[in-house]
């Protein structure tokens, strides 16, 4: 099956019109010696066969376990209306909205998304999306380098280690100094994460002030759901706010597609990467939307562009927008509040001496166990529980430390069973 429309008769007539004798005739420009002959691929499959085959593969992934995995990617409830709406072909199969008049749906949705993100974060401008949270940290960093003309980057030790690794990989040939710390002196930016990778919550208002006194930018990596409850990057005085948007109605998807959120202050908008939609009017004065400040982008500015990004994650941004609309202010507050309260409840069910950080946490916390975290998660699996992320497996903690995530989806019964099981497997 290759979804080709033209019949053999039509193909012949078309070839005649072109003045070619065969389909192969159209490829004579390719030298004979580099034509590959038939590729060594498995034989073709029908729709029925491929669905059976892929369903088999999908069954080999166990999603029936009760999971306390987080580490930057969270299992929140996703309303059905999101899938129904983003499946519409007019969204799903449209291209980048370069022809604005036939892409008003896309452009207005981006404008609404930008608005929702700015209201969520208390920032002034948001772009139309980046790839994911980690690449958003990278883009925020190069943006800070452009703004400050400095090359030293300070990363909080509790930044998601995956983001740190992505940042180091993407910039390895740019001659930046990526360091651990939060000292703004001489730095292009200080990057902090709130809640931190360990789930702890801080207020970075003072740090923002110190950054600004030192001529550095403060980049705050936030968890979008947490802003239903917690102090916002804008309230703290952040210059750039970035996030992984997965928790806003995007399924876990084994790592992608996700959503990179980036928002900033008005003064930095011309240094911002990515697409930006703006409201304007047509010749009759009707409100409409276009892409704007495109001279920042690669298709105009080429090697001098603010970023190389072209394809972004527009459909995921639409998911996030619809999620925020469905939840509304009250719904998002409730979800955030429940994440907090249920996490606190679980913490209280565990021996106090296991809690590794004496700090407020949001929907995640670290326990330091008497035995190795690897052993614990193995034993918990036999009870149908994915107990969390052993921190050392992502290079972020000690072998006995386990990162446990709790979302609003967890019931009191599940939390109690988890706590009881954890006590038992540790003591067994």
């Amino acid at each position, binding site marked *: 099956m290759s979804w080709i429309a033209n019949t053999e008769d039509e193909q012949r007539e078309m070839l005649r019109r072109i003045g070619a004798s065969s389909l192969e005739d159209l490829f004579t420009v390719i030298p004979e010696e580099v034509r590959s002959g038939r590729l060594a691929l498995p034989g073709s499959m029908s729709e029925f066969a491929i*669905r059976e085959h892929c369903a088999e593969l*999908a069954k080999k*992934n166990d999603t029936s376990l009760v999971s306390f995995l*987080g580490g930057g990617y969270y299992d929140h409830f996703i309303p059905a209306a999101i899938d129904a709406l983003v499946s519409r072909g007019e969204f799903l199969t449209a291209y980048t909205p370069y022809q604005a008049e036939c892409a008003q749906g896309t452009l207005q949705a981006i404008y609404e998304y930008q608005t929702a993100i700015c209201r969520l974060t208390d920032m002034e401008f948001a772009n139309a999306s980046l790839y994911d949270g980690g690449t958003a940290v990278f883009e925020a960093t190069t943006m800070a380098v452009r703004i400050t003309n400095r090359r030293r980057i300070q990363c909080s030790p509790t930044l998601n280690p995956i983001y740190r690794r992505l940042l180091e990989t993407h910039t390895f040939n740019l001659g930046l100094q990526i360091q651990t710390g939060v000292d703004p002196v001489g730095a292009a930016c200080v990057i902090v994460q709130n809640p931190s990778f360990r789930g702890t919550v801080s207020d970075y208002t003072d740090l923002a002030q110190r950054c600004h006194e030192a001529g550095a930018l403060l980049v705050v990596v936030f968890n979008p759901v947490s802003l239903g409850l917690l102090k916002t990057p804008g309230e703290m005085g952040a210059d750039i706010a970035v996030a992984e948007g997965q928790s806003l109605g995007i399924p876990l998807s084994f790592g992608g597609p996700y959503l990179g959120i980036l928002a900033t202050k008005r003064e930095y908008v011309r240094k911002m990467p990515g697409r930006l939609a703006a409201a304007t009017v047509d010749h009759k004065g009707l409100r409409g939307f276009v892409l704007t400040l495109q001279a920042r982008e690669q298709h105009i500015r080429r090697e001098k562009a603010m970023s190389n990004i072209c*394809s972004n994650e527009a459909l995921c941004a639409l998911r996030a927008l619809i999620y925020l609309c469905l939840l509304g202010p009250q719904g998002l507050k409730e979800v955030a509040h429940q994440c907090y309260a249920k996490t606190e409840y679980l913490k209280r069910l565990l021996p106090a001496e296991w809690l590794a950080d004496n700090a407020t946490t*949001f929907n995640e916390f670290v326990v330091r166990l008497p035995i190795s975290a690897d052993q614990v998660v193995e034993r918990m699996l036999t009870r149908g529980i*994915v107990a969390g992320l052993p921190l050392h497996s992502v290079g972020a903690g000690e072998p006995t430390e386990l990162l446990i995530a709790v979302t609003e989806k967890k019931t009191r019964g599940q939390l109690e069973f988890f706590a009881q099981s954890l006590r038992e497997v540790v003591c067994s």
Partner: protein
Amino acid sequence: MQLIFELSKKGRRGVQIDPLDVPDVSPPSHLCRHTDLRLPEVTELDVVRHFTRLSRRNFGVDTNFYPLGSCTMKYNPKVMDRIAAEPGFAQLHPHLSSCPAFLKECQGALALIYHLERLLAEIGGMDAVTLQPIAGAHGELTGTLLIAAYHKDKRNEKDLVLVPDSAHGTNPASAAIAGFKVVEVPSAPDGTLDREAFRAALTERVAAVMLTCPNTHGLFEPAVQQIAEMAHAVDALMYYDGANLNAIVGRCRPGDLGFDVMHFNLHKTFATPHGMGGPGAGPVGVNEKLAPYLPGPRVTKTEEGYELSEPIKSIGKIAPFFGNFLVAVRAYAYIRMLGAEGLEAVSANAVLNANYVLSRLREYFPPAFQGNCMHECVLSAVPFLQHGVKALDFAKALLDKGFHAPTVYFPLTVKESLMIEPTETESRDTLDAFCDAMIELARDASESPEKLHAAPTTTPVGRLDEVRAARELNCIYPA
């Protein structure tokens, strides 16, 4: 049309959350938000109607012919979406891959990744493929970073990347972010790379040559093997931009043409939906020179099952896990459904359709270059400038005829360019209707240009004031 924010009524709800079933506690006030959370307060029906209405203000492949050059807007089969929605794929937590104890819970996903990488390696003529890059441009960046790591490792002092003037803007932008200086190589009058200029630009300092083949003029580079040979003679690596792979897929492999590294656009060649600009996916293939530097982890197959390993000289991580996995799932299904013969039919019919459009339109719109094209043709609207009609006017007038516009004003090398890529999934009937519309517009352009200037008139809005948009910069709803 109203904004969702304008529909908001205090107290309306779209989703019901279960009551809290544990003791109610709150964090300390100084860590809490004290600003209003001004999200819309709407019902589920408000949301469904609003976004359904918005969707109807869009053209998609599902609704309209979309002949955007270099974008490969082919039909996106629905079965692929259904497969990607399998709970075993869509609900799978990526950190299951972070810890050895959990690997047995995600064997199906690892198998799919492993096999898709093998399929793409065979299609590209490459030794190894990574699915990590999240988009085509991200693949370019990954590829140029791999090239940087290769030269660093060999202590080669190279700081330049050669890019043709016909290349997509992402090529020079990606090379620059990878830390290279970009040298633009002009095209020859026949639309292929200027061999003399290339020879002159190719010094010991050149780290890589980035080519799109066929190029954005819709032409296969006839000298590509010699170009590769010359590049390799100074240890410059050959980068293949996969944007136009649809023209040759199944019948000619970049690896066999002399390319060392390439990216695939799963959202172009392999029919995954473009989603209004993303998500796409840009897997990168490499030959043995670059395989040791690939981002990790890599999925390997052992007797016990699928495991993970880090390449010895890995550049690190390009994506948090395995790239846009659900896009990869779709592409896997597509390739398995087509098989080798199906892929050959794809390129055959993509090239057939483009040449058919070219044959029908060439007497009205002069082709930028002589001879047949590959999967897209580049025409020019220059003859209509005398009537005050530009390529942009044709683009807008086509919208009124129910067709998405071709790519206009790209490639930058062709004045008033109209770049048309019909793809293999369109029927001759559709192509004829499109060509008829173009011919009618050509006549209108000479006889009554004001008709084109007024277009579009059937879309939700007419031509928009972009200058005002940039000046006012109203990018969030102020109220």
